[in-house]
């Protein structure tokens, strides 16, 4: 079975790996990108970026860039979903449906009543949905649910109004009237343990900072914590990149040491500006990709991998399906390993990336940390 192609011609994987390494080493500033659902692939991709003097990015990083910005500019008091499930007697859900794409977390939290904490124990959870007019997926959950309507583009304003209300400060007409705002602020303050849940990919950095500020203000006297949700693999990939490179992706190794820049190292920008002249990309997309803009090495899970204009193509297995994977599990708030669903011959993208990195490492630093 063919698993590697050069210019559309089937080749051995060894040949393809050598060609990929050659292409990357000849490139001025290669882009190493993709979705990296599997942290193993990310760890190896970081080595590829390091050895080839390239830039490491994730195709979805833009979705969590505001969260990353808010976390490192301001900080936050945050909580894991398991603890929300057991302890939060009052939950403020910000946005129309922050649990879209995070259904498992929704199940985990709202399937039961809170049972920890002397004050929360035995009572039903109170849930306020800030945003939608209808309870939506909350119509079936345990607990008392009510909605407070708020347009999506005014959620940040609403949080600001709650903070002003909590602080006894004046504010003008906003998403809801003054009495309701002050009442909602009081409701949060009187919780045994309040949780504020939001979709971090829907709010801008300042709004996330506002949520963090509201939680911080609440904690002056009571307990409250924030739960940012980020559906998909990108937040986990950013976490993984931090220990390997020091930064949450968008990190360049052109000068050896890692250099981070959310704008200048954005993969899409690098390709459109022409600053990157080659690319290695990990794709779980089943459709053909147009990658003719720069010489591209494509690692694809597609049944018949096709990359319009790809120089080198590797067919890879699906992580957690064809081979085991390590990924960030939002319910757990940390990394877990998942075994393969079945044992097949499909190649692990991490192994290919690792082989390319070894090949590059051989050329550059014969004595570096090449794995035995």
């Amino acid at each position, binding site marked *: 079975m063919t698993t590697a192609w050069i210019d559309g011609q089937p080749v051995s994987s060894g040949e393809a790996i050598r060609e990929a390494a050659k292409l990357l080493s000849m490139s001025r500033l290669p882009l190493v990108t993709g979705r990296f659902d599997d942290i193993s692939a990310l760890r190896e991709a970081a080595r590829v970026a390091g050895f080839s003097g390239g830039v490491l990015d994730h195709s979805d990083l833009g979705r969590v860039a505001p969260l990353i910005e808010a976390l490192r500019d301001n900080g936050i008091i945050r909580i894991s979903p398991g603890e929300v499930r057991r302890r939060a007697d009052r939950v403020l859900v910000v946005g129309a449906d922050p649990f879209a794409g995070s259904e498992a977390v929704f199940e985990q939290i709202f399937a039961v009543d809170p049972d920890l904490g002397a004050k929360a124990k035995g009572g039903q959870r109170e849930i306020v949905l800030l945003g939608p007019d209808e309870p939506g997926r909350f119509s079936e959950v345990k607990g008392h649910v009510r909605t407070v309507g708020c347009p999506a583009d005014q959620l940040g304003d609403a949080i600001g109004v709650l903070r002003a209300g909590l602080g006894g400060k004046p504010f003008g007409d906003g998403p809801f009237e003054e009495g309701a705002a002050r009442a909602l602020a009081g409701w949060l303050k009187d919780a045994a343990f309040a949780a504020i849940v939001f979709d971090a990919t829907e709010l801008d950095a300042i709004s996330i900072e506002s949520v963090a500020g509201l939680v911080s203000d609440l904690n002056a006297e009571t307990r409250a914590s924030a739960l940012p949700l980020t559906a998909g693999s990108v937040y986990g990939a950013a976490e993984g990149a931090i220990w390997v490179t020091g930064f949450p992706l968008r990190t360049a190794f052109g000068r050896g040491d890692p250099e981070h820049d959310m704008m200048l190292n954005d993969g899409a920008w690098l390709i459109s500006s022409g600053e990157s002249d080659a690319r290695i990309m990990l794709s779980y997309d089943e459709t053909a990709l147009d990658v003719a803009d720069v010489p591209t090495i494509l690692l694809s899970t597609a049944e018949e991998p096709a990359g319009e204009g790809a120089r080198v193509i590797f067919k890879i297995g699906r992580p957690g399906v064809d081979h*085991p994977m390590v990924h960030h599990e939002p319910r757990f708030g940390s990394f877990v390993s998942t075994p393969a669903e079945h044992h097949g011959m499909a190649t692990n993208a991490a192994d290919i990336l690792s082989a390319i990195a070894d090949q590059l490492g051989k050329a550059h630093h014969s004595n570096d940390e090449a794995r035995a």
Partner: protein
Amino acid sequence: MLTCLKGGHVVDPANGIDEVRDIFIKDGKIVDAPAEAGSANETVDCSGMVVMAGAIDIHSHIAGGHVNTARLLLPEWHRAFSARPGETALSKVGWTTKETGLRYAEMGFTTVVEPAMGPQAALHAHLELADIPIIDKATLVVLGNDDMLMSMIRDGESDEAIADYVLWTVDASKALGVKCINAGGSAAFKENVRSYAFDTEVPDYGVSSRQILKTLQKAVTDAGIPHPLHVHCNNLGVPGASADAAEATIRASEGMPLHLAHIQFYGYGIEGRRGFSSKGEELARLINENPDVTVDIGQVMFGQTVTISSDEMRQFAGRAQASPGKSIIMDQEANGGGVVPMNYKEKSFFNALQWAIGLELFLLIEDPSRVFFTTDHPNGAPFTTYPDIFALLMDRNVREKWIEALPKSVKKWTSLPEIEREYTLAEIATMTRAAPAKLLGTRDRGHLGSGATADISVYRPNDDKAKMFGAAAYLFKDGVKVVENGAVVAKPYGRALTLKTHSDAKMGSRLDRYFDEAYGLQSRWFKVEGSALRRETPFREVPCLS
């Protein structure tokens, strides 16, 4: 292949050796001298140099969720961050797993223990450890604020059941030992308790910090885990209450071994108009009198750093002193934690006295096998400050110079200027090699006897001890030369040391149900699979005590 380290001054207190002799390495182990002199394939001239076992750091936060959060929180202190001005104390750490390994190796360290791995962050911690080159690593898993343990104590479950639970956790998380951090404090904080001490009860559970600690201490001892329960006491850093907590905990050891971490942060009294004074002498005396207790220091050094702790309650309180003024606090199952940046200033009375209290403890605790060399990296200071601390311990003149630079008001409040003791090379070797290996139960290291793992550091003597210990002349890891003249020359991957143990199957199925029902989590997520780490030999097992 036989390698001979020839003619070095071998300082190996574990084997009572302090003399010039040759050391032979074969297949990654230290071997007896061959019958035929000169049969070595390779000879490394160590004449005039000091040869010791590779150093062991028993308490350094080098991996795991909280450390990674600190990296996320402080991009501006990263050395290589684009357009950042200036070098910073913290930037020397490098802030990546790779640089962590390189920096430790350059100083002659070969084993480092990450002391605060939450059960939930076990795979994360091991993934990071797997990416740290050269050194061997180990972890201590954190219990003591978890619903399971507190419920078991409340419900009066048997010692065996509790020991089974502890062993399951150690086994699943691939830990080497157990740590307890402000027992019950994080759980109490979730119920909005802001003031908490050794005999305070955790609301809703009705168990006290003392009960939790004693239960864990017994379980660890019963299970045959070599490293005694590693304790982070209540009220860390609180003047007065911290010293009370340390004293109460030491008195509660009651003849069973107990290790108290970063004891410096507990040496704080409330005298003087600032309400901050040294309890260093009293605390050292108490430790000297209690031979079942070991401690590490958590020395404070001046400069920008970041505090990383699973003591959520104290980290929350520490937010007020955050510098720069941002922090991340985590409410989680069990401990949670917090990451709070800190800038210890030489000109601050409080910081300067913290520095002095650490050194008082180092120098007044008499037995170098019961006091360990740590900065609680990065809490008191980054581990890259170690060479300076060696110099402070070994050279009274160096101490005098540092004291001169402090605010005058500090001298009145510390006995440090009067302390004459200077650590000897043998004492340094005891504190950083022989004793930690014994404390961790890792008998294959910490000494240079036949059969030991060939982790060997060689230093070029220098009157400036910071220079001497800052850059090893050679470092051998498993017999491979990895450092030469203070620079890394090879980057093999080490392993994580794990406890060889098996947990009870019944406890396994009980916990499968428990995690699912209580938290909606799968218990398998807590289990670290070696294959997930992508290293050929990710672990080396350390036996339990029989």
